[in-house]
């Protein structure tokens, strides 16, 4: 597979002996320092410009980890993939939908909304610190992700709501009225758009991805 590679789980911190904890699907996984470093690099380049521009594949991750000084980076990455702490997927097609059905996105920050000067650009972060800016569609998916069981459910709900299938128009209009038009009403297109930019969100720690519990 030549698609993207993504980190799975919520970081819970380090223990006294240098082990790092990541909660995946409700189970706390223990990562040694080298594995943790590889998992951290799985979030994508720290540089937001790079994160937006470089497709973060397994090959890129291994190469980047090697440059960062990790020994046997391919083995580290393979071990994390085997444990489900890194997952390879595609941004489009059946693999993307399968990923979205099996995973959820969980925000780690609040939304700071848009501005009159740039109504199509939305900021995510904290009141005293902006983390990143995204377009309206990615902001909507991010905004709703904590309230849904899966990423796919968010895309389906967002797509159907836009086409007016979610119920009567509420007073005051729908929240996305007046924003940039969506690429389409198909949830697969929305999912693809979101996944294409998801490394920006995970590398900024604006969200984490997790598996859906059985």
């Amino acid at each position, binding site marked *: 597979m030549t698609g993207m590679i993504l980190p799975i789980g*919520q*970081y*819970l*911190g*380090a223990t006294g002996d240098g082990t790092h*904890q990541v*909660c995946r699907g*409700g*189970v*706390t996984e223990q990562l040694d320092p080298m594995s943790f470093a590889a998992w951290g690099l799985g979030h994508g380049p720290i540089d937001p410009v790079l994160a937006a521009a470089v497709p973060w594949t397994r090959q890129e991750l291994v190469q980047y980890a090697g440059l960062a000084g990790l020994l046997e980076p391919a083995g580290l990455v393979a071990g994390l993939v085997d444990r489900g702490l890194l997952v390879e997927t595609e941004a489009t097609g059946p693999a993307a939908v399968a990923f979205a059905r099996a995973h959820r996105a*969980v*925000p*780690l*920050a*609040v*939304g*700071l*909304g*848009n*501005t*009159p000067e740039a*109504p*199509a650009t*939305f*900021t995510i972060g*904290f*009141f005293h*610190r902006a*983390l990143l800016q995204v377009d309206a569609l990615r902001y909507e998916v991010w*905004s*709703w992700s*904590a*309230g*849904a069981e899966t990423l796919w459910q968010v895309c389906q*709900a967002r797509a159907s709501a836009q086409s007016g299938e*979610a*119920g009567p128009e*509420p*007073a*005051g*209009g*729908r*929240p996305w*009225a*007046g*924003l940039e038009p969506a690429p389409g009403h198909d949830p697969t297109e929305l999912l693809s758009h979101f996944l294409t930019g998801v490394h920006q969100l995970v590398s900024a*720690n604006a969200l984490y991805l997790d598996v859906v519990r059985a």
Partner: protein
Amino acid sequence: MTTLLFPVGHYLGPHYLAGADQPAGHRVRVGASLRWLGTEPEVLAWTLAHGPGELGDPDQAWDRANVLAYGRWLAGTDLTDAVTRLVDRRLLVEVDPDGAGAAGFALAHRLRSLMLPLGPDPDDPDSVLLGTAGQPELALSELGHAVWRAGSRTGTLWDACQAVAGGDAGQPAAGSGGAAPPAAGLLSELLSELHDLLSAGAAYLDAAEGGSDAGVEIH
């Protein structure tokens, strides 16, 4: 014990329609519903309900009277009507940590964790720093950290208390779901410390799953 005032929902910021110089409102997600703070007093009241933060005494019990007083002090605004409206709309909730309603509040709401754990506080090894990458924002007590961890993995505040009481803040306690009460006093202690988490932006309260408002937009 004072009846405390808490905000409910994940803040999504002001929302400007194209061409408008004033926001249509500020959006808040609660469960699967979109809610609006439509006036400046509502935004101020909901924001102040998070706690005094660095503006005031962190040990101050944060109640309706304090929110009204800070509204007058900070903005010269009477927030009485705004607070009443938001309580009616369940975007603000009042609860006495030691009262009969505390358990119902804990069953109807959940804590969703934000930020990252950054390791022990160098100034206090018993505390844990939370923040963004490389930027500590607050130090959590042992209880606060346990609750923060449990919040992401439990469906209600009640279950979070059980997980913490069970000594495993990483996993829901076996048999969770409201059958057994949390350890004596733990819920009260948690609620008394909750404004520290909320005011720092390290967590927010959400409606527990299964609310009657799922999937709709409510003004």
